[in-house]
C-alpha cells in the first residue's frame, strides 16, 4: 500500500546533488564566458546609455514636438496628437519626466531588437513547418515562464544593469511579433499566391511582393503587442537595475507609498495607451485598400 500513498520520488540526497550539479556547471559557465558575453553586449550598452542621455538631455519642448509629430505620422489624427502631448505634459508636471524618458529609451530599444529579430524569424517559420514546430514551443516557454525564473541565469551571467534588463524585456516581448508575422504570412490568400506563382514569381518576389505586404496588418498587430508587453515588463526590469518608471513603483511597493505608486503606474498606462492607439491607427491605415469605396 505504501506505493500508493507516497509518490515514488527521487531520494533527497540525489535531488540535492542533481540541483547542485546544474548550479555548479552554470556557475562555471558564467565564470568562463561571463566576461566575453559582457564584452559582446558592450556596444549595445553604450548605445542604450547614449540614447537614454539623448532623451533625458534634450529640451522638453523638442521631445513634445517629436512625440506629437510621430503621433501625426502614425495616426493622422489631431485628437491623438493633442491627447498625447497633454499626457506627456502632465507626466512632466508631476515630476516624472526623467523616469519617463528612461522608460521610453529602453522600450524603444527593446522594440527595435524584437522587430529586428522577430520578423525574420517569423518569415522563416512561415516558410518551413519544421522551423515552426521547433520555435512555437520555445515561444510558449518565453511567454509563460515566470519572469523571475529567467532573471536568475541572466543576472548570474551579466550581473545587474541595463543589458540584462533589456534581455529580460525582449524575452517577454518578442513572441507576439514572431507569432503574428508567421501567422500573417500563412494567412495570405492561396489564390493570390497561386496567381503569383503562375506569373513566374520566385521566392523573393513572392515574399516581398505579395506575402509581406498582405501580412503587414498582422505584423503590425504583433508590433503593437510587443510594445505593450515591453511596457508591462518595466517594473520587473527595474528590479535588476534598469532606470525608469519602474523604480518608483518598486519603491512604492516596498514602502507602501500609495500616491507614488499610483502616479508612476498611471504614467506607464498613459504611455501604453498612446502607443497602442497610434500603432493601431497606423495598422488600420495600412489596410485602406481593403475598403470598397475609398477614393471613389
Amino acid at each position: 500500500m505504501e506505493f500508493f500513498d507516497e509518490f515514488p520520488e527521487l531520494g533527497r540526497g540525489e535531488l540535492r546533488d542533481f540541483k547542485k550539479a546544474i548550479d555548479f556547471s552554470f556557475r562555471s559557465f558564467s565564470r568562463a564566458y561571463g566576461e566575453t558575453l559582457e564584452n559582446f553586449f558592450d556596444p549595445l550598452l553604450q548605445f542604450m546609455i547614449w540614447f537614454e542621455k539623448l532623451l533625458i538631455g534634450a529640451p522638453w519642448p523638442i521631445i513634445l514636438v517629436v512625440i506629437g509629430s510621430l503621433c501625426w505620422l502614425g495616426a493622422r489624427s489631431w485628437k491623438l496628437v493633442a491627447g498625447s502631448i497633454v499626457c506627456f505634459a502632465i507626466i512632466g508636471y508631476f515630476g516624472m519626466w526623467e523616469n519617463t524618458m528612461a522608460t521610453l529609451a529602453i522600450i524603444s530599444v527593446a522594440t527595435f531588437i524584437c522587430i529586428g529579430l522577430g520578423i525574420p524569424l517569423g518569415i522563416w517559420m512561415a516558410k518551413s513547418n519544421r522551423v515552426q514546430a521547433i520555435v512555437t514551443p520555445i515561444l510558449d516557454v518565453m511567454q509563460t515562464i515566470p519572469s523571475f525564473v529567467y532573471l536568475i541565469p541572466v543576472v548570474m551571467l551579466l550581473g545587474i544593469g541595463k543589458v540584462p534588463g533589456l534581455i529580460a524585456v525582449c524575452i517577454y516581448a518578442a513572441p507576439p511579433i514572431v507569432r503574428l508575422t508567421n501567422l500573417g504570412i500563412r494567412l495570405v490568400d492561396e489564390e493570390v499566391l497561386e496567381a503569383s506563382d503562375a506569373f513566374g514569381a520566385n521566392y523573393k518576389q513572392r515574399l516581398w511582393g505579395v506575402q509581406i505586404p498582405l501580412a503587414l496588418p498582422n505584423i503590425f498587430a504583433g508590433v503593437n503587442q510587443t510594445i505593450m508587453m515591453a511596457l508591462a515588463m518595466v517594473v520587473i526590469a527595474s528590479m535588476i537595475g534598469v532606470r525608469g518608471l519602474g523604480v518608483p513603483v518598486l519603491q512604492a511597493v516596498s514602502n507602501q507609498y500609495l500616491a507614488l505608486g499610483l502616479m508612476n503606474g498611471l504614467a506607464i498606462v498613459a504611455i501604453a495607451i498612446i502607443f497602442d492607439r497610434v500603432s493601431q491607427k497606423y495598422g488600420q491605415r495600412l489596410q485602406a485598400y481593403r475598403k470598397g469605396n475609398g477614393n471613389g
Partner: protein
Amino acid sequence: MADSKIEIRNLYKVFGSNPVKAMKQVHAGISKQELLDQHGHVLGLRNINIKIRPKRVQVIMGLSGSGKSTLIRHINRLIEPTEGEVIVDNEDVLAMSSDGLRDFRRHKASMVFQRFGLLPHRTVVQNVAYGLSIQGVSQAESSERSQRWIDRVGLAGFEQHFPAQLSGGMQQRVGLARALATDAEILLMDEAFSALDPLIRTDMQNILLDLQEELHKTIVFITHDLDEALRIGDEISILRDGEVIQDGDPQSIIMRPADDYIADFIKDINRGRVLEVRSIMKKSSRATGPKMVLKTPLEDALQQLVNAGKDSGAVTSDDGKVIGKISLKNAISAMARPGRDKKGPRYK
C-alpha cells in the same frame, strides 16, 4: 507533332499519401470510387490525351469535380502530375528545371483565374503590370505597356483604383489585362467568367472573342457552362470523373454525342442557333435555291428557305462557290433532340 502547340500525353493525377503505389491499381483498371473506398486515394485525372492546336480556343468542359481545373494547372505545372507528359512547343514542361519553369510561366503561358487572383494591395495599373514587373521590365516600360491593355479591356480611368473598389466584371478585366500584358502565346483561363453574372459574362466573352480575332493566342478555356463552351470553343473536350469522354468541334459534339451523359448534357441547348448548315449539308456542286454560307446557323437557314418558298437551298464556301445542298427536311430533323436509344455513330 508540329501541328499542336500543347500536347498532353497519358496524363494521370492521383491525390493521396502514396500516389505512385496507387497508380498500380489505376493501371490495373480500378474505378475512381473503388480507389477511394479501398485505398483512400482520389483519382483526379486518368489517361488524358489532348492535342491543342496553335491559335485556337480549346475548351475543356466538365461539371465540378470532373478534374478540369486540375488539368489546366498541369499545363503550367502549378500541379505536378503523377504520370504523363505535357509538351509545349516540343518541350516537356515536366522536365523543366525550376528556372526554366519560371521562365516558361513568365513568357510563354499566362493565366486568368476564376476568382481573379488579383493583388488586393496594388492598384489596377500595378496589377496589370505584375507579370512585367516579375519579368524585370523597367517601371516606365511596364506601365506604358499595361496602359495599352487597360485601354483595350475598357478600364481606362480606373488605373489608380484598388481591386476591392471594382465590380466582379471589372476585376476580371484586370485579370485578363494582366494575363495579356506579358504577351505570352498561351492563355490559360480557369473558369475565368464563371463567377460573373450572365450579362457580364456574355460581355466578357465578347471581349475575349474580339481580342482573339486580333491576337490569335492559343487559349485553353475551362468552363462548366455548355453555352459558353459552344460560343467560345474551336474545339471542346468534355471531361467526366477525370477522363475525357468526347472531344471535337462543337458541331460534331452536338450532332454525335458520344454517350447518354453528353446527350443529356446538350439536350437543353438551342440547336437551331448552335448548329450550322455545314454540319448537315450534303455535298453537291449543283444545288439551287437560296444561297447561304457554311457557317449560317440553322435557324437563319430555315428562315431563308421559308422566305424563298423553297424546299432546299445551296450552301456556298466563303468565296461564294456552291459546295453543298441543304434541304428543309434535313434541317428540321437536325433540330430535333437526338433520341436516347438512337444508334448513332459512337465516339471511339
